[in-house]
């Protein structure tokens, strides 16, 4: 975001002086919060869980826990962390604060990929769908990166991305309608954790190695954010890193869309908030981004399950709604 450069008021003005940080709550609070959210996620649900039964490692409660609640918790945490990290990487690659899979056409491309897989190769398994989703997402993101390399205005990039996503969505609609697929598409493309069940969700664990790889390359991704010339001066292979970053992003997007569906805005809000708080050095902030994403999604998921209990609001809606509102807030606050 464009901010007028403040006259040098003095050394490090406004950097380390946040009072609540001084109170030393830095490490303890987020950890405790995270644990509490996880626990809450395990406890909430449509079915009742007898706590007593848990201790015997048998019975219905245990089954609920292992077959539904724990996988769901894993999916929520991994998806949240993965999407947030994706957003951070995309923001460095495209050098823009407002990008994430939903505003670069990546989500829509992945959906299109899955659609194509379902219609052209109906008998194929999840692996094929995953591969196609990833391929479509990668191609769309590469095209978008090339196209927007020439755009200067900061806000223009996410606008272009949303348009691009709409066009891809229209393409998907066209394709789906012509094969009478449209009816079902809207439903199962929306992010929904209630479909997560042991035995069908495991592909989302792919997010873990991806996030780890991102952390290994964190310094390089921060360098990418400084532009091609600075990266070249420091001897970094700019194009190779961009492609690598987009591959990692596409893998995460494909894995999460296949398992859970599309969840917009999470990958955008979390890196921005962390950046406001702790700066842009990914080597330091990436763990926070991952944790923040997981927590945001845990909250959205809990919200979705509690609002109209015992029914559920899909997380694609809560995430989109909450995330969208936070995004709007960030935009308008940045305007000030």
């Amino acid at each position: 975001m464009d901010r007028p450069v403040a006259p040098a008021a003095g050394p490090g003005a406004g950097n380390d002086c946040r009072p609540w940080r001084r109170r030393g709550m830095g490490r303890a609070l987020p950890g405790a919060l995270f644990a509490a959210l996880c626990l809450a996620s395990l406890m909430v649900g449509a079915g009742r869980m007898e706590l007593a039964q848990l201790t015997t490692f048998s019975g219905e409660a245990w089954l609920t826990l292992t077959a539904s609640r724990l996988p769901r918790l894993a999916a929520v945490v991994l998806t949240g962390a993965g999407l947030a990290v994706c957003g951070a990487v995309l923001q460095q690659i495209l050098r823009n604060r407002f990008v994430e899979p939903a505003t670069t056409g990546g989500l829509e491309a992945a959906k299109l990929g899955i659609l194509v897989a379902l219609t052209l190769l109906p008998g194929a398994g999840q692996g094929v769908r995953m591969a196609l989703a990833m391929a479509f997402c990668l191609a769309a993101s590469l095209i978008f990166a090339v196209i927007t390399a020439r755009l200067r205005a900061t806000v223009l990039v996410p606008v272009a991305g949303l348009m691009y996503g709409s066009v891809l969505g229209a393409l998907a609609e066209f394709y789906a309608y012509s094969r009478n697929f449209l009816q079902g598409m809207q439903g199962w493309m929306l992010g929904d954790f209630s479909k997560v069940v042991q035995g069908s969700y495991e592909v989302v664990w792919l997010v873990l190695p991806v996030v780890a790889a991102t952390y290994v390359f964190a310094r390089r991704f921060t360098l990418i954010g400084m532009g091609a010339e600075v990266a070249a001066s420091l001897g970094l292979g700019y194009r190779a890193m961009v492609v690598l970053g987009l591959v990692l992003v596409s893998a995460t997007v494909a894995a999460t869309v296949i398992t859970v569906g599309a969840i917009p805005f999470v990958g955008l809000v979390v890196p921005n908030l962390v950046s406001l708080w702790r700066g842009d050095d990914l080597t330091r902030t990436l763990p926070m981004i991952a944790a923040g994403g997981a927590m945001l999604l845990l909250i959205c998921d809990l919200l979705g399950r509690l609002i109209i209990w015992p029914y559920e609001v899909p997380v694609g809606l809560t995430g989109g709604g909450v995330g969208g509102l936070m995004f709007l807030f960030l935009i308008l606050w940045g305007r000030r």
Partner: protein
Amino acid sequence: MTGRATFALTAFGLALLALAFVLQGAAADPVWLIPRRLMKLAAMIVGGCAVALSSISFQTVAGNRILTPAVMGYEAVYLLLQSVLVVTLGASGLTLWGGSGGFLLSILFMLGYSLTLDRWLFRDGRADLWMLMLVGLVLTMVIGTVTQFLQLRISPGEFAIFQSAAQISFERVEPWRLLVSTILFCVICLAGWRGLPALDVLALGRDQAMSLGIDHRRAVRRLLMLIAVLVAVSTSLIGPTAFMGIFVANLAYALAPGAGHRLTLPMGCAIAVGMFLLAQLMVERLFDYRTTVGILVNLACGVWFLALMLRQRSMI
């Protein structure tokens, strides 16, 4: 070719197209087919002209060539209203009440939204356009999620009713709705006709307009009101049009370069109607109903718009 000549040519081509649309294959059952087609044509004309007029004048007010009411969230508000109505009134209530009542309510909501935009975003007279657009797009998505949430609470039957309102279609035109829309449209046109020269001056920008004696604030507010009604007319008559307004407006500027609104507005109308005719013909003849007008229009306009945005470095 001068702008006027282009317009004459376009209008002529349009007339031919319209004739083709109404008469094609009508020999089979003219008594039944032709009146229906005429009604569809009327809906295309009124709806298309409403889209064109509202988009072009909104772009003049906003001072740039990208923003249109659809993109700024007007249509999302309309859809939200529809879902709220469906949720609160249910399917039966909607068919009873949703007719004229829903129409009036839509107009009221649009007016309210216009006022909000006017006060909130055009406040200092200058609008940070890309920021506005981003806000509009995100707002559309957020409202979309709320709308989808509401849809969770309704039955499939009610959902079908809602769904049909959420897509462009000339099928659901009832005579009375067409009549009301046409009357409203004519009223707006008359109201706006006298302000046409002022519109040209507004296109010069806020400062220039004020130095030439135009009360900018009042003119903008008045225009936004008219635009709101136009959008209500077009969305309730034919459905949400998304990117079409941008396409129509920019093509009108391209075909009538340098001309005032006296030429661009009619040109825009012609383009919009032509586009609808073409899309409908393609759906019927080429795609054999395997797609819809909305999908075709959105696809074409979306792609065109992306190309436009990325080709030009400086947009305004």
